[in-house]
């Protein structure tokens, strides 16, 4: 494999130079990098002792990308370093090296990538490889990626390769080989008669298969080839649009689903109505035994995901409402959600001089209604078909419920504010501990107010106030933050998060932070000092646990 890669590499570079005369002025090199560093110190007031620190006084995560482009050719390299990884990141990343490299040719109708690549089929229900630095998430593929556009409106993609698992090389079948094809057809481009039609139709289909050797020590005969397919459609007419994707996977016993031999299903629906000043979106989702990874039983760390199951829940952006985020439960969940955006026109009684922006959001997610298979008294027994479930019936156990409102208003040319409220039900055992029958509930009411006052055209003062009331977990929280900015370069912030009324402790805690950030063109440097509370950080549907810490934080990010 390694010599094949090398040969292809030279072939590509050779082709690059062979393109008539090589003109260096047409070549471009770009890059970007980021360094996140943190110091860790003892802080008895928030319960951080010498034992917690355990000799680890600092952590550093860093990466650098270099991309080279010449005409239709490009090549890239990514270096990563975790020396040692920041707390809260998977410690198996410890080390440094080239995490990623590729060569790519992209013509009008044909594109090929060898080496590492990222892509997704449809919504990602059967395949998605991506990278999210802030979460330490990277399931990049290493292999070959081909894209064809044989005619207007048709895109055909093929993938073949293995996935990244920390720094571990692929050898001796230590993880699965992933292969797949995807076809996307836009009927309006394809058929002359539909070219000017007001109804727009797009169809797509994917097939993805994983090959992973059976484990000779396993009690079961495990399927070595796990196939999955998905079909999707998107329909649009005027202000309406409808999107649907359905996916199916053959039995795939793995450590996540407790080695049951049940087939998996996933369904994602969304409908929108939108016109200027108004947007409405309704979504529904059903996930049934759909964890799809390229290691059925990893001995260490988490298995690389082959697919992506987008969470239905709203992604809160303010600190306190975002404290209890939802993550898709791949073993089974059903949910609905709806969101409305409305803009009250300016110069109306309610809109005021500048207009008022309103939005409301609701989501409800339950478990599936699971009953034992024939001959069993319990669900999820390893080696059996696991369970039966009614496709249309919500299970009794509520996982998550969120009702939120938000209002944005500019009062006059110097003052504006955003106000919001969130009512949350959060099933802690299900979401954080993955206990499917979990009953431990957490309920909270949270309000926030974010006010910005312009001192002069380039200087602004921002005040954020948030309050969360709850009887469970760590109790109530209040947050105040002041930010002073001098555009476009400087930011100064002071923040305190105050924890009180804690059901498990008589103590109250202050988590204060002081920060400065400087941004110039594509470079940003920020330094902060203070305490970080324990929490969950989520981006785009994947989360990581962040432990409490105290000390300095430094982030440098730049692109060129």
């Amino acid at each position: 494999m390694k010599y094949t890669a090398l040969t292809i590499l030279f072939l590509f570079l050779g082709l690059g130079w062979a393109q008539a005369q090589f003109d260096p002025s047409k070549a471009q090199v770009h890059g970007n990098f980021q360094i996140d560093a943190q110091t860790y110190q003892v802080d008895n007031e928030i319960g951080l002792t010498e034992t917690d620190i355990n000799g680890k006084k600092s952590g550093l995560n860093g990466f650098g990308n270099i991309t080279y482009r010449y005409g239709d050719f490009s090549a890239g390299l990514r270096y990563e370093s975790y020396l040692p990884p920041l707390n809260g990141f998977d410690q198996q990343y410890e080390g440094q090296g080239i995490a990623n490299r590729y060569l790519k040719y992209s013509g009008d109708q044909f594109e090929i990538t060898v080496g590492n690549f990222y892509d997704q089929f449809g919504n990602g229900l059967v395949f998605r490889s991506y990278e999210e630095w802030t979460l330490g998430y990277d399931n990049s593929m290493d292999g070959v990626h081909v894209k064809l556009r044989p005619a207007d409106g048709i895109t055909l993609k093929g993938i073949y390769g293995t996935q990244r698992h920390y720094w571990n090389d692929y050898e001796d079948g230590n993880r699965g080989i992933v292969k797949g094809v995807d076809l996307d057809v836009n009927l309006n481009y394809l058929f002359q008669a539909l070219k000017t039609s007001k109804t727009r139709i797009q169809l797509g289909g994917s097939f993805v298969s994983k090959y992973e050797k059976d484990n000779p020590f396993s009690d079961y005969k495990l399927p070595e080839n796990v196939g999955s397919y998905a079909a999707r459609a998107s329909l649009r007419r005027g202000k309406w649009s409808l999107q649907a994707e359905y996916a199916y996977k053959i039995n795939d016993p793995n450590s996540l689903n407790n080695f049951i031999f049940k087939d998996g299903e996933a369904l994602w629906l969304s409908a929108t109505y939108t016109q200027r000043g108004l947007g409405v979106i309704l979504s529904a989702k059903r996930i049934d035994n759909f964890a799809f990874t390229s290691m059925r039983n990893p001995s260490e760390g988490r298995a690389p995901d082959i697919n992506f199951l987008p969470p239905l829940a709203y992604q809160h952006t303010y600190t306190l409402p975002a404290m209890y985020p939802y993550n898709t439960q791949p073993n089974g969940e059903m949910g609905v959600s709806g969101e409305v955006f409305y803009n009250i026109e300016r110069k109306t009684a309610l809109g005021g001089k500048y207009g008022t922006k309103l939005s409301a959001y609701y989501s409800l997610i339950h478990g599936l209604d699971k009953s034992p298979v024939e001959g069993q008294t319990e669900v999820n027994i390893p080696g059996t078909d696991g369970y039966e479930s009614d496709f249309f019936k919500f299970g009794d156990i509520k996982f998550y419920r969120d009702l939120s409102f938000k209002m944005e208003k500019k009062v006059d040319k110097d003052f504006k504010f955003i106000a919001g409220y969130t009512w949350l039900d959060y099933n802690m055992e299900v979401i954080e501990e993955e206990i499917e029958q979990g009953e431990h509930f957490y309920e909270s009411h949270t309000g926030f107010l974010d006010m910005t006052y312009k001192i002069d055209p380039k200087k602004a003062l921002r005040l954020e106030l948030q309050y969360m009331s709850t009887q469970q977990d760590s109790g109530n929280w209040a947050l105040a933050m002041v930010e002073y900015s001098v555009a476009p370069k400087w930011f100064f912030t002071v923040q305190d998060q105050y924890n009180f009324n804690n059901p498990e402790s008589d103590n109250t805690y202050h988590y204060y932070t002081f920060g400065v950030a400087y941004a110039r063109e594509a470079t940003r440097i920020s330094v902060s000092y203070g305490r970080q509370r324990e929490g969950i950080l989520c981006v785009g549907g994947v989360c990581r646990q962040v432990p409490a810490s105290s000390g300095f934080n430094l982030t440098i990010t730049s692109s060129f």
Partner: protein
Amino acid sequence: MNRTFIITLFLLSGLAFTVNSQNSELPSVDIQTVYGEMMSTSEIENDGNPIILSFWATWCKPCIKELNTINEVYYDWQDETGVKLVAVSIDNARSSSKVLPMVNGKGWDYEVYLDPNGDFKRAMGVNMIPHTFLLNGDGEVVWQHTSFSEGSEIELIEKVRKVANGESID
């Protein structure tokens, strides 16, 4: 495998010296319209006028503040300089279908595209959002800025004016 990496590294760093750093065209990458139809970034154009290319997401507070702020003065900017703002959302499948309702709900008049798996974002070297690029009439990147604070739009329009008048950006 390590040998391949090292050879690649050397080859690339060698090539880096043969590069004209002034030249910075947009990479050609597949993105989607807000309706999910595929298109290429090479189709982004504005009749020889400047383009503001802004990376954002529905869950990014400062991005939404930036786009709200510019929207208030967008007509004036367009009349004065002919500039067009192209907003590229990096929302993934979780929230990409809410991009259009949100854009309409907020009354934004921008050209909006989706980059649901971050292909364009990676090709442009975007680490954090908001990240804003300024393109001249030939579609070349002449300036970029990351993060947003109240008043940052003043610096941006000053740069746009220079580009519209064919002046140097510095």
